[in-house]
């Protein structure tokens, strides 16, 4: 330690033990019970080094002058509440903690919301499927109504053979 009498705040003398310096700190902080305090005060009256430690401690504590603390902004409370609403229920947490598992990532309410969103998507998909199915069906009908004829594979084969026979037939 580099303590000496002309050093700044909180500097006890070199010859004072660490225990005494801690005691001086407790005295200044009001942490000594009445009986210990009385005994310490009796020592202080006779021990200049101890008194110097107490003075130094008091000087050091006097340096900590609290400035004005910033105030919460207008929307602070609302933001905290909004953030808290997004959390898992405390019951879910305590249940998961007591069972030794990790806390669920989403709450039951969130899971319900996810299921509802999934169902909504499913309904939209079904509606779209019905719509496109209907359109396709209507398209087939239009194609049938357009007068185009369809032949079976056998009919086509027969027609091809007939044409081949005509070509091969000697004139």
């Amino acid at each position, binding site marked *: *330690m*580099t303590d000496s009498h*002309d*050093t*700044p*705040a*909180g*500097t006890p003398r070199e010859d004072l033990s*660490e225990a005494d*310096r*801690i005691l001086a*700190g*407790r005295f200044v*902080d009001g*942490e000594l019970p009445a009986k210990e305090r009385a005994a310490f005060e009796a020592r202080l009256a006779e021990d200049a080094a101890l008194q110097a430690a107490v*003075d*130094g*401690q*008091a*000087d*050091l*504590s*006097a*340096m*900590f*002058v*609290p*400035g*004005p*603390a*910033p*105030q*919460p*902004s207008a929307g*602070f*409370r609302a*933001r*905290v*509440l909004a*953030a*808290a*609403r997004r*959390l*898992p229920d*405390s*019951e879910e*947490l*305590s249940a998961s*903690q007591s069972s030794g598992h990790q806390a669920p990532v989403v709450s039951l309410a969130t899971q319900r919301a996810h299921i509802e969103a999934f169902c909504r998507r499913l309904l939209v998909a079904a509606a779209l499927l019905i719509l496109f199915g209907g359109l396709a069906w209507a398209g087939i009908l239009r194609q049938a109504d357009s007068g185009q004829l369809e032949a079976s594979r056998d009919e086509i084969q027969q027609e091809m053979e007939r044409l081949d026979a005509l070509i091969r037939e000697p004139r």
Partner: protein
Amino acid sequence: MTALQIMPERTDADLIEAILDGSESAFETLIERYSDRLFGLLSRMTRDRGEVEDLAQEVFVKVFRKLGTFQQDSAFYTWLYRIAVNTANDHFARRKRRRLHLVEDDAALDAQAPGVGEPDHAGAAIPLLEEELREVTRQVLDTLPEKYRTILVLREYEDMAYNDIAKVLECSIGTVESRLFRARHRFKEALERKHPDLVPSRSGTYRRSN
């Protein structure tokens, strides 16, 4: 007017019970009750006002999430402080790891220091010496390791009893005593290095030795 507004005498225990039963307004009351105190504590740990608010929000959200685990054999505020100190220190450690902890120069400190160069709440000018002393103290405090800075904030700014500090830091009273002693010693050494001209007078004020 809400029911809570006409029952301001509700204890912390009442509020906690109501919150655990799902009362959002009780949580709102708890936030209102402890905001100033929490902002005060966090502003002693960081100078950035935006950071103070972000941390305070994180602390309250953690309080809400962990309220079911609160053992009501100690004061609520010591539990709140424990969460606040851990949250702030975790945040500073993360920031340091990400190398975003920039070294603040004196000009930046002057610009951000709460209340410096501004009128106080009553509108009257703060005496220069007190203001200067406050700034010097903050500067020296900022140079200390986290565990010493934290215990000095709790004891010197928050005026907490050793017993409560022990609860906040989750350690024994003996540890509080020895850590506080070392913190004060480190503070004094840093003060000597940074401001060797600053000496205490027996009237409890400080002056420059020139």
